[in-house]
């Protein structure tokens, strides 16, 4: 697999959300608007890339039994890092994303990638993989966020294009499930075609 394919696979072919159906909580919980989706996506992508790099670096030294705990510590460190940095320099966004920032730790994608890819591949490949997956995740989040924002608030990236409100459901929990359901159905269809 060349690096380009490695990079691009995260967008559609192995998109962590549409195809692997992982990391659903932040996906549903933070995508009330495209902007939030973007923020969450980038935060996750950052953690993904950094932990992929570090894990592929240390993979040789870690004994099997403490593999998972070690990886988790690495990931959690980066998550805390993001958390702190965001709280310090982007307090607005930090407040919006709330609980979901620390929860990046348990985002199945991050650990899943660490296990499935970074612990078996070199630094460079892992970086690319992390970047691809991270951006794929971001892409999905922005797509879902935009859908929900357009339908739910009648705006996109905060720019209002209709008078009044949209369909509130899409800002709330049920709309998140429903919108994602149809997006996945459509993506599946596109992927097959």
């Amino acid at each position, binding site marked *: 697999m060349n690096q380009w394919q490695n990079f691009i696979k995260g967008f559609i072919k192995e998109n962590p959300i549409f195809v692997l159906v992982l990391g659903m909580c932040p996906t549903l919980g933070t995508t009330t608007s495209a902007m939030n989706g973007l923020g969450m996506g980038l935060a996750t992508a950052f953690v993904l890339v950094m932990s992929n790099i570090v894990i592929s670096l240390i993979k040789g030294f870690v004994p*099997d039994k*403490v593999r998972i705990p*070690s990886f988790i*510590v690495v990931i*959690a460190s980066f998550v805390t890092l993001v958390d*702190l*940095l965001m709280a*310090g320099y982007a307090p607005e966004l930090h407040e919006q994303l709330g609980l979901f920032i620390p929860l990046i730790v348990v985002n199945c994608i991050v650990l899943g990638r660490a296990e499935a890819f970074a612990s078996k591949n070199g630094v460079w490949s892992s970086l690319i993989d992390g970047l691809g997956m991270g951006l794929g995740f971001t892409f999905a989040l922005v797509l879902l966020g935009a859908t929900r924002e357009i339908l739910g608030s009648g705006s996109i990236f905060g720019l209002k294009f209709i008078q009044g409100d949209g369909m*509130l459901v899409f800002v*709330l929990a049920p709309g998140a499930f429903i919108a994602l359901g149809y997006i996945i159905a459509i993506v599946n269809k596109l992927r097959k075609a």
Partner: protein
Amino acid sequence: MASKKESTLLNMVLTLLIISVVSAGALGYVYEITKKPIEEASLKKELQAIKEVVPPFDNNPFDEKFEMEAYDGSGKIEVYPAKKGGEIVGYAVKTYTDKGFSGHIDIMVGFLPDGVIENTKVLAHSETPGLGSKMTSEKFKSQFHGFNPAEKKLIVKKDGGDVDAITAATISSRAFCDALDRAYKTLQKGGKIK
């Protein structure tokens, strides 16, 4: 098939220890760096809020802040006196209510010394986006500018008061009034305003 390394007690402990120590070190370091910005950020937020709700001042309200028992004994509210040239120009009061649609709401409200409301700002809430969340909108807030609780009733119109509720969010509106009312009555009880 990840690592072929044997799992012995020593290397397990060592590995985890090293990783943790390095992480902790790095995090501790970052924490040190970000500590100030984080504090500043939250301070700034409060200061910003105070600035928004009371007339211009030149003291540091944080230094002079004091706490008051709410008039109904339901909790404590924080009061930040704003002074200009040593003269009190208003009180920024951090008040709250538990009657929101989704529970607790924190509001900063500013009173002029004569008890007239200067302005309000919602600090924290978890009301429904698009409904209760509209209490942060200018349209709703503007009616409180210059609102004198001594003359008008801090109750929504539906219940016989003088406050225009947010459409379809009477509960949130009511809660909002409840918070303001709490601040007003507490200050009044403490004799800070008329």
